[in-house]
């Protein structure tokens, strides 16, 4: 039985065929098929995500707005959501600018106080983004290590657009999604017959099932058994990683509001000049056989200030501020641990029972809703 998904595109003459029958394993994998980026992520764990984000951001600034403003019939929800990156990035830059740009024109000492606040706000905006992104990993990575469920596993989706007045031929485009981005409709199909996980049709599900400790009998229908569990874990991961990420982000901004950041020198031109000067001095010192102190680069200074700020945040001289900070940090840690606890252990023993096979596509006893 072959169930056809997608549109027959006469221009490309390529089909999207996803097979569910074990005996009819897909033979004709083509570029026109949605593909998991498992190998790419395995080979380049850091750059794959960055490349995808860069591609999305470029499109969000160029192609998608053009299509959207023209009212193209090919614009879709993915493009709308991807364009959401623009206000996020531009907004962050504007937040920094609001507190820093005007201080350039201020006279001292107004400039000094404005600059102090501006630096802290600038660091705060960056810290917010970083903490929000990376704190999610604290829940996602352990889940992946424990069960092999990568909630961020990307796939490249092939989209066949409708021809329009300006574009009649180049109708195939791609989008980057995550296999588990929708908990209602995870892309289970992409894991079937996927050579990256093994030779068998259900290799991925068996692999996950084994990690979950399923019996050999259960592993015979691993996909039926494992899918509900994966779905449950993905939902929990999304819940706790989302909630904890905002708490971590708030904590990071709290750390950024501490006094050590006030005297951070950002001025890149000055830094380059200082570094050049240092190299000259180091060269002279070397010739004279002297040693001079190691150059404090920007990263090192950032690190030092970060450590000092964390200390101030945790041990603030004001009792109420100290406790407020600790509560904020504590809630972020607690939410993360709760997320780990909830996703790494199995609680529901009755879940994942294989349902009885339906003889009809639609159960007549159930009420259906159109919209």
């Amino acid at each position, binding site marked *: 039985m072959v169930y056809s998904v997608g549109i027959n595109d006469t221009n490309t003459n390529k089909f999207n065929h996803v097979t569910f029958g074990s005996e009819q394993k897909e033979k004709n994998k083509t570029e026109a098929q949605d593909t998991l980026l498992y190998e790419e992520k395995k080979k380049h764990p850091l750059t794959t995500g960055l490349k995808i984000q860069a591609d999305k951001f470029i499109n969000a600034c160029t192609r998608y*707005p053009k299509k959207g403003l023209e009212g193209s019939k090919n614009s879709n929800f993915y493009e709308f959501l991807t364009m959401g990156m623009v206000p996020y990035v531009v907004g962050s830059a504007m937040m920094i600018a609001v507190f820093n740009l005007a201080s350039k024109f201020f006279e001292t000492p107004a400039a000094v106080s404005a600059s102090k606040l501006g630096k802290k706000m600038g660091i705060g905006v960056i810290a917010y983004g970083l903490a929000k992104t990376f704190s999610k990993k604290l829940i996602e990575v352990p889940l992946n290590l424990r069960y092999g469920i990568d909630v961020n596993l990307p796939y490249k989706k092939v989209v066949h657009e409708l021809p329009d007045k300006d574009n009649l031929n180049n109708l195939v485009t791609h989008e980057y999604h995550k296999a588990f981005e929708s908990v209602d409709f995870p892309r289970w199909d992409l894991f079937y017959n996927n050579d990256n996980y093994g030779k068998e049709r259900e290799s991925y599900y068996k692999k996950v099932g084994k990690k979950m400790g399923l019996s050999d009998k259960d592993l015979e229908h691993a996909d039926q058994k494992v899918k509900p569990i994966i779905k449950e874990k993905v939902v*929990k991961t999304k819940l706790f990683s989302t909630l904890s990420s905002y708490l971590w982000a708030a904590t990071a901004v709290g750390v950024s509001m501490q006094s050590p950041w006030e005297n951070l020198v950002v001025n890149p031109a000055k830094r380059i000049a200082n570094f050049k000067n240092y190299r000259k001095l180091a060269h002279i010192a070397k010739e004279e056989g002297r040693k001079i102190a190691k150059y404090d680069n920007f990263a090192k200074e950032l690190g030092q200030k970060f450590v000092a700020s964390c200390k101030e945040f945790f041990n603030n001289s004001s009792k109420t501020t100290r406790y407020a900070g600790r509560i904020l940090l504590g809630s972020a840690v607690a939410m993360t641990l709760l997320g780990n606890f909830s996703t790494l252990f199995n609680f529901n023993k009755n879940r994942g029972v294989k349902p009885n096979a339906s003889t009809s596509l639609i159960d007549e006893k159930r009420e*259906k809703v159109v919209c």
Partner: protein
Amino acid sequence: MTNILNTIIANQNISPSQAMDNKPLPAFTFDTNGKVKPKEYKGHLLPSRIFGSPIEYAKDLKKDIVSIGKAAKGQANDYELGRINDLGMKLGALGLAAYLFVKNPLKLSKAMEFAGFGTFFASMALWPKIAIQAPIKARTGVDIHQKYIDSQGRKKMLFQDPQYVLTDLYSKEQLEKMGDKLKVSKNLPDRDNFIKQRAQKTALQGNTLWMMTAGVATPVMSALACNRLEKPINAIIEKYDLSSSARAVENIGNKGLLSKIKEYFNAKSLEKLLAKNADKPLNDKLIAKIASKIGVQANSASIQAAIQDELKALRTPGTLNETSIINLLKDRIPDLSALPQAQKDALNKAISEGSIPKIADILSKVTGSSKREQVKLAREFSAILTEAKNKAAVPSLSQVSDKIRTLAANVSEFASKKSVLDRFISARVGDKSGTYIANQWGKVSERVIKSLKLSGKELKSVSEGNVEILMERLSDLASQDAKFDKVVQDLIKLIGDYETKTGSSFTTTVKETAENICTAAGGEFESKGFKRLAQSVSDAAKKGTVENIINVNTAERITGAQSSFYRLIQSLDLFRAIKEGTLTTRISKILTENGQSADSASVQRIVEACKKVIMDATTTDYVEKLKSSGFGLSEGEYKTVMKVLFDSESESAIEASLKRTVGSDRASELLKGFKAYKKEFMDKIANWQNGMTSDLARCTVDGVTNGANAVERNNLAGKPISNFFKDTAKKVYNSNKWLKIFGGTMLALTAVTLIATLVIGKKSKTEKQAEEQQKTNG
């Protein structure tokens, strides 16, 4: 296998025209042989509102909380997870605002944290509504953010997914209305479809515009809103501080109120210290630690010193030492080998009674078997006594801890009352931003600088210390009756309010409350045996020197600001007199009286000198009798300038203006204060001779001098007008610059966005052709 749903639909008697009908498709009804029994849909559009109702928000919040519960069990769907994300973002921001609220010391900063949180989310929601949604709806009838509830009760945006728009939810009337505004040709056979497509396209364009502009609009709009909110929030805080601190002073004896005060003594911290050092002797180091724990809230050096004295007093030998001596003797009785049994028993009895005199008596009557033994016994006893005496002199902390607790409780009571008074004073004349005096100063400064109508460049120039422009503008202002009157009126109003709030009623309240606090505390300390502390506060109350205890410099701060206000009035008065020509007349008269030449050059030189003195002179310049520091006045000129500016009997040029603006009564009242200020200035500064060289000492107007210390003189001199305007101009310039950059950005963005909304939803050439084609095809 064919799609069963399609088969069913195909088998129904629903014609294509019926399917394309404008009414929503009827619910499918099949007999029992059919496979599908769809329920009639419940999805419906929601009314468009700028602000949602609080009940709706509460309902949604309840649903979100339920969703979190479901998600924690791993059962939530995409919609619920999306809403949890929005909720998490708000909770995170709220948590951060709460942290920054606690962290910021100033009330205004605290309030602004929540204002920032509120305005950010409000801007995020309002920008698309005001700048995009509303104009597009007004022009095209399409609400691009139209919301609907689906049959599962999920609230969604109708046009969020351009590939899945439930335009069927619109009624025929709604579609027709929209079509008319979208200028879709009438009488098209398939008009509704055209309307739906155009609506979808309009929404897509609008939503794209929203995504492209929100990044700039939200933070800038939020920052501008915060900027605008700062003043009203500050005014509310000021009002609250003034009234609540006044109420607290009225109820200063109320125990409930005192216990609520945060500064109330932290007993836990003292208990910790007492427990940790219970066995340690009460040495100087420990005394300092305890004193700082007890006295830190009192925030007064003399109280701190008195507390140390009280603690030291606990070490002196006294009744407490008896216990130590007796304990020591008890331990050493077996050592007294030479003591006969009878006397040993008597001694034991005396020890158990705890009577030192009895013990001493027994021991003095000890008769040993030999003289040698007696001497030995006497030596042993002496050693014991010395040891006991030494030990008793420095008791362990546990022995005096109760006394320390009583001391702490009494000091904390005093400190709490004092903090109530401190807050009352601070809210009015505190040396920090946000207090009444600081706010009033800000209002006066802004009002005056605004009246000068300085351009951006001039403002910058003044902020850099350019006095020429300033004087020019002051002259302009003085020459325009209506404007001058308005400025004077506004200033008088502000100064009048200042005088009321910091006048005699305020100073009397402070003085009386301070004395009452000290008297009450003195009595309380006395009754508990803390004589040194009692003396310290009672003396202050008796001698009227509570300032030393309460640490208030209210009078100085009040005079300082008042003098600066008067100096401002004086500058307006001077420029008005110059414009009216009365100043030159007065100068000529004074010069003639003094037997000096009153030619126009001399008069003009005095006029310029007067201007310069008002603008620039500081207390230091006055100390040097304006001989140096760029003034270079001769003795005669000094006398003339001082007489012109500070002769309280001379006429005032703003008198007429004052009468016009505030009426004769208020005018004469103000002039009374103004004259008193001039007189005081003349007495304490212009005629000042003490400690000067004979050259300088000669520079007085009438030779009469009244003593004033340096602080008084400094306060009386007020802030030089050039400095006043320099600081104010700098503040205004910075604020304007910031506003120009971001206000300009916002303005430009709004303009571009609004222009863009005019193009959005327009009929394209292809759409026109399609319409024409259908018209032709009929």
